[in-house]
């Protein structure tokens, strides 16, 4: 690769650094746009349930209730009425932001015996006992799940693509640290309005100040993908087709058995809840999973709430559903390796994080997206400058990268805004509503990629950022026009989920407006200023 600034180095050292710089450049570029998508949608995921709630404005305020006796009585009554003869009843208790409403799930119910559906998943109003009906939406969960499922892709492809992206990201981080010669000395250095130099500074600053977060998120991402990435380790122990067995052994509660076919009354839940309270303390039950209710082989699995510890794994108690005997007590981590895995995954998901901490996660994610974006821009700015200096035409590869940069760095945020717009504008009764919210997002992204391909470069940046500014800043207005819960109302009522969402998109709108203004300014002549800093930190990072 071009290394115009490397001449000051000693040959051997420059050789190593140059190789690393080459690796950094190309590992970063090849999957950079995908990484930007992963960062953007994953960052939104830190507020997944809050976005869920914004996207279902019909639902009442959260019904947090830590008294498992009370909640389980209401839910069990619903299950008895709606799902007789089911293979599984699941009661999810509303104990924190992750589960703001009580929820029931069942499968294998007997519609002949009066079940309303073979399987269903419902929110239950704890005050009235009725089903809570919100509009059909993918919510924050769908947005968040995109960051590793890639939405339209089958799991067998997306797992591999995400694994590679994560690995490339990790390579990018390590090589980035190696080629950045002055991490401490240049820690506070940002020189604006100096063309390429400013982009490098911005890229350095964003990377360095979020470095611990980046390493944590990428390393834990690798752990997440480990089972698909290193399948042979599992295959060696469990056989080539043994992945199902492996998952069962590692993640399923122990001691579950088949149905016996002999009816037997289900034991009341109260003593089991008390027993769980003696194990973990009061009010720490997240879910109660009943297998084969009404059968003599019934089992009740009570899961612990692990939200206040970093480790993502939770303890589980397995009871005999007829006699109430405690059969198994699975600790939160079944082995040291599992414990380490749980901590990293817990850190990645940030489920333990209280509000302020959650905002810091969100900020780190946004800055991470900024890091990827600035990296992509540097690649193009640098080559654009070389092309200009040679007075030649820009090579096709450069044009492609420039257009993808606009259509992704500015276009994807607009597409995510379109996801929220679709939530409010699609008819509430529309049958495939949730799917179309996502289609609206990806169609918008496609449209903006086309726009980026057709428009001149600087205009495309300005227009798309301006569109992003408008799309985000107008969301509170859209919300005010389509629901009762506008910003004034939510602020007055202390409804921080709605107020927080509206204020955040407003802030994003302002940020994009600023970006549009910056993109519209006359560009400083980068070619003339860059040589004033020969051989500086990342000048040779190409």
């Amino acid at each position: 690769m071009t290394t115009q600034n490397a001449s000051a180095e000693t040959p051997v050292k420059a050789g190593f650094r140059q190789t690393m710089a080459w690796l950094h450049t190309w590992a970063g570029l090849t999957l950079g746009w995908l990484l930007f998508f992963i960062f953007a949608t994953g960052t939104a995921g830190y507020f997944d349930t809050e976005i869920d709630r914004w996207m279902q404005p019909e639902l009442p305020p959260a019904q947090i209730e830590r008294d498992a006796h009370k909640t389980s009585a209401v839910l069990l009554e619903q299950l008895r009425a709606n799902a007789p003869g089911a293979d599984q009843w699941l009661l999810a208790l509303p104990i924190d932001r992750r589960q703001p409403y009580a929820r029931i799930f069942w499968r294998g119910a007997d519609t002949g015996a009066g079940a309303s559906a073979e399987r269903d998943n419902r929110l239950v109003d704890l005050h009235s006992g009725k089903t809570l009906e919100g509009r059909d939406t993918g919510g924050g969960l769908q947005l968040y799940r995109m960051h590793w499922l890639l939405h339209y892709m089958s799991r067998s492809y997306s797992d591999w693509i995400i694994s590679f992206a994560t690995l490339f990201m990790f390579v990018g981080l390590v090589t980035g640290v190696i080629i950045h010669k002055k991490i401490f000395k240049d820690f506070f250095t940002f020189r604006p309005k100096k063309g390429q130099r400013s982009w490098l500074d911005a890229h350095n600053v964003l990377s360095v100040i979020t470095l611990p977060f980046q390493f944590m998120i990428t390393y834990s991402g690798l752990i997440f993908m480990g089972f698909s990435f290193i399948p042979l380790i599992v295959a060696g122990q469990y056989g080539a087709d043994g992945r199902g067995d492996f998952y069962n052994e590692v993640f399923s509660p122990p001691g579950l058995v088949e149905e016996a076919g002999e009816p037997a009354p289900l034991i009341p839940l109260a003593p089991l809840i008390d027993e769980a309270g003696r194990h973990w303390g009061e009010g720490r039950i997240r879910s109660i999973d009943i297998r084969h209710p009404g059968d003599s082989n019934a089992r009740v699995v009570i899961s612990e709430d692990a939200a206040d510890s970093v480790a993502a794994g939770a303890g589980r108690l397995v009871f005999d559903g007829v006699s109430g005997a405690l059969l198994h007590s699975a600790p939160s981590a079944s082995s040291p390796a599992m414990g380490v895995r749980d901590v990293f995954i817990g850190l990645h998901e940030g489920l333990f994080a209280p509000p302020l901490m959650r905002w810091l996660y969100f900020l780190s994610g946004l800055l991470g997206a900024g890091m990827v974006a600035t990296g992509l821009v540097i690649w193009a700015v640098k080559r654009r400058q070389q092309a200009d200096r040679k007075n030649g035409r820009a090579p096709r590869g450069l044009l492609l990268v420039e257009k993808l940069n606009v259509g992704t760095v500015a276009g994807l945020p607009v597409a995510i805004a379109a996801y929220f717009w679709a939530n409010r504008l699609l008819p509430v009764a529309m049958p495939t509503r949730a799917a179309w919210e996502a289609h609206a997002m990806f169609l918008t992204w496609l449209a903006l990629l086309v726009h980026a391909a057709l428009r001149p470069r600087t205009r495309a940046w300005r227009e798309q950022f301006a569109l992003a500014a408008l799309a985000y800043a107008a969301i509170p207005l859209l919300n005010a026009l389509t629901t009762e819960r506008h910003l004034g109302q939510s602020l007055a009522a202390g409804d921080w989920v709605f107020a927080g969402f509206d204020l955040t998109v407003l802030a994003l709108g302002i940020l994009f407006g600023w970006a549009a203004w910056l993109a519209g300014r006359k560009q400083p002549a980068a070619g003339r200023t860059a040589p004033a800093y020969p051989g500086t930190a990342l000048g040779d990072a190409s």
Partner: protein
Amino acid sequence: MTAVPLLAQCLLSLAAFSCLCLATPRNARQLSHPRWRAPLYWGGWLLLGTAAITAVTTGGWGPGLAALFGALTLAAFIVIGLATYRPGGLVHLLVAGMIGGAWLLGKLLLSAAAPDFPY
């Protein structure tokens, strides 16, 4: 879980990075005096250490460190922004961060010494 420890870490990190930024040669020439460089430098690291100790003692190694890194990211972002566009504000930030951080730290220490202290 209360937000006081994390807020304290944010304020201490802001003060710490302000110190370290003011201790850089360029800022020391323009904003303070070269003879302040060493005290600012060591003061900055001392404040960072205090933030780290606060993090680990209140949150443990896992969530504590995660919180600390979050606070450091936020503080570095603000300080770099200020140093770039309003370098004069660094001194104010330093003072504000110190006072706020010390106040919250005192609050934490008091509540640790006397858990029933009415807050």
